[in-house]
């Protein structure tokens, strides 16, 4: 698959690191000069911008968290006057106020280029007809991916998120070759196609460039086989730009290449904030290297991943991050073992006849932590014989215990007792913490 900007994406590491240092120092100088919030933070730590003498000195700098952006709502963290801002986006305000992000002309130019890199890595070229199935609005996904596809020169259809039937209709009529959206929306579309018995030959679809939420390999396999496409993952977070931070290349199982000439990424222990070595899973922390309107230092994304600096067969020299395995808020610790919902999802999806619809209840009985995984049973399985149900339950238990390395109870529950796991459904119910707060 083509490399959009070979100069930047295959740069020798020494050269790249020099560029990163220059840009990190420039950003440090700019925020110290123009963002009072950062100036105060620096002063509180007795820090001057020139104390950043190497990339390792990044860890001297303070973290930025979502709460800082909320406190500075709407424009306090901007580094340029509003008249130089040509675009304003916001993040969803599921909890509390939304956060606001701004872009200068140069920011938009970079954004287009970075998304073009990600889309190219996923297979897209100027010959593609691209259906954008993200909602156009305050969020960054639709506009970011739209502009990147235009930058490549593809034909872009701004369908927006909609009912699967509408997406399928346009897909057929407009001869769409690339679908851009969330994996759960792609899955809905794929399942609708299957249900309605639309022949795959009536579609021209080749690529699925999906992101904006964690998805399992099992979901990927299902989307790929139902739609007959190659589906790649991409990652972005609006606070640092939006889509365009990283994306998978043709060696998909090896992770997402980070656009390191624009983003400096670290993985830290979510609790201590210590930087973790490559390969260890922790919280992704991003520093923007080129943003003019809203430069952000060490932003705690809350997303869990691990970095892999090993060279990739595609020729890109950019470091890779593992697909997001969950949110720091979803991770829970039982008897010292860290557990991620994605691990549980992977096991359940691997069992014949089960869908990854589940809830985990963590509790404490007589001082010992207990884990109960409730899995929804599809109707088809319920009509079968009870022994089969019991053996399925036992199979899930054994595989979970092997995968997680701890004792687990499994309970199969009736269909539709658990809401479909789209977006931010709570999959983990931790009763230990609510008990603790009684004291």
């Amino acid at each position, binding site marked *: 698959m083509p490399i959009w900007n070979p100069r930047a994406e295959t740069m020798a590491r020494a050269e790249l690191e*020099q560029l990163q*240092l220059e840009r990190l120092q*420039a950003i440090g100088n700019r925020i110290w000069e123009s963002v009072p919030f950062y100036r105060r933070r620096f002063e509180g730590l007795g820090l001057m*911008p020139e104390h950043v*003498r*190497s990339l390792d000195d990044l860890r001297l700098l303070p973290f930025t968290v979502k709460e800082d952006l909320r406190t500075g709502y709407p424009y306090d963290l901007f580094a340029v006057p509003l008249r*130089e801002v040509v675009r304003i986006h916001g993040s969803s305000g599921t909890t509390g106020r939304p956060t606001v992000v701004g872009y200068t002309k140069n920011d938009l*130019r970079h954004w287009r280029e970075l998304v073009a890199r990600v889309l190219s890595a996923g297979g897209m070229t100027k010959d593609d007809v691209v259906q954008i199935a993200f909602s156009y609005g305050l969020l960054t996904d639709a506009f970011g991916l739209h502009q990147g596809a235009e930058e490549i020169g593809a034909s872009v259809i701004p369908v927006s998120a909609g009912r699967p039937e509408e997406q399928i209709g346009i897909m057929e009529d407009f001869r769409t070759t690339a679908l851009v959206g969330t994996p759960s929306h792609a899955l809905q579309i794929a399942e609708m196609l299957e249900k309605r018995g639309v022949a795959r030959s009536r579609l021209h679809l080749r690529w699925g460039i999906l992101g904006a939420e964690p998805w399992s390999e099992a979901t990927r396999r299902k989307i790929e086989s139902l739609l007959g496409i190659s589906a790649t993952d991409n990652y972005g977070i609006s606070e640092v730009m939006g889509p365009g931070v990283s994306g998978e290349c043709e060696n998909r199982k090896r992770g997402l290449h980070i656009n390191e000439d624009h983003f400096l990424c670290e993985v830290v222990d979510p609790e201590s904030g210590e930087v973790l070595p490559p390969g260890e899973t922790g919280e992704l922390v991003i520093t923007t290297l*080129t943003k*003019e309107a809203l430069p952000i230092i060490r932003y705690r994304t809350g997303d869990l991943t691990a970095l892999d600096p090993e060279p990739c067969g595609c020729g890109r020299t950019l470091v890779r991050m593992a697909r997001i395995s969950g949110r720091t808020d979803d991770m829970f610790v039982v008897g010292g073992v860290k557990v991620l919902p994605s691990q549980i999802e992977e096991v359940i999806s691997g069992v014949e006849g089960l869908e990854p619809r589940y809830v985990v209840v963590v509790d404490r009985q007589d001082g010992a932590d207990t884990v109960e995984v409730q899995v929804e049973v599809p109707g088809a399985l319920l009509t079968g014989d009870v022994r089969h149900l019991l053996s399925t339950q036992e199979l899930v238990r054994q595989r979970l215990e092997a995968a997680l390395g701890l004792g687990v109870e499994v309970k199969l529950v009736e269909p539709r007792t658990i809401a479909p796991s789209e977006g931010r459904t709570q999959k983990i119910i931790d009763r230990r913490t609510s008990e603790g707060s009684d004291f």
Partner: protein
Amino acid sequence: MLVVRSAETYYGNIQALKGVSLHVNEGEIVALIGANGAGKTTTLRTISGMLAPRRGEIAFGGRSIVGLPPEAIVRAGISQVPEGRRLFTTLSVRDNLLLGAYHLSWREKRARVRGDLERICSLFPVLRERADQVSGTLSGGEQQMLAIGRALMSRPRLLLLDEPSLGLAPRAARTIFDAIPRFRGQGLTVLLVEQNARAALQIADRAYVLETGRAVMEGSAQELLSQREVQRAYLGRGYRQVWEDE
């Protein structure tokens, strides 16, 4: 080709460079822009060895050149054209050029000086016409060409140009700026310091903006030209000298 990492340079107790990092790739024209006192000339003088950085690294072609005397840095392939030209005004144009090869052995001189003079005179034909003239009688623009020609006599791979348009009439400045991109054809790389930011950005590939001893921006020349803060601070938005192209 040239890599500077976190250079800190002082004049006595006054810190003029507060951790400047930059790089120049082979064949590039890179500009340093910024206000008076931002550290542009100090950066060039730190690279050419006239000033020693208290901290930081400078590597040329992969080898550290920190602490080398200026003449060793010239031999390594870096030549600086100082601000204000610094010619020997009572000597002829030809003798000034020959002085640029002062560090060569007699044998080296014999082997290459004639060809080098020819090459430089083809870049700046006026120097050939005035070869026997005393350099003090040249116009400002011609003196600047002579200063550049003299620096080229050492066959540098990297040319450091300090304010080449300073004090020149518009037409002369334009001749100089037109000539700089042609150096590329001679296998030359250029690091250029300029107060006239717009003119510099128009011929440069990339640029750094310096402010009070710190680099605050890095980017392609095109990007910086359209950066409104740069426009306001250094390009005198709306104001343009007559000889500058859009």
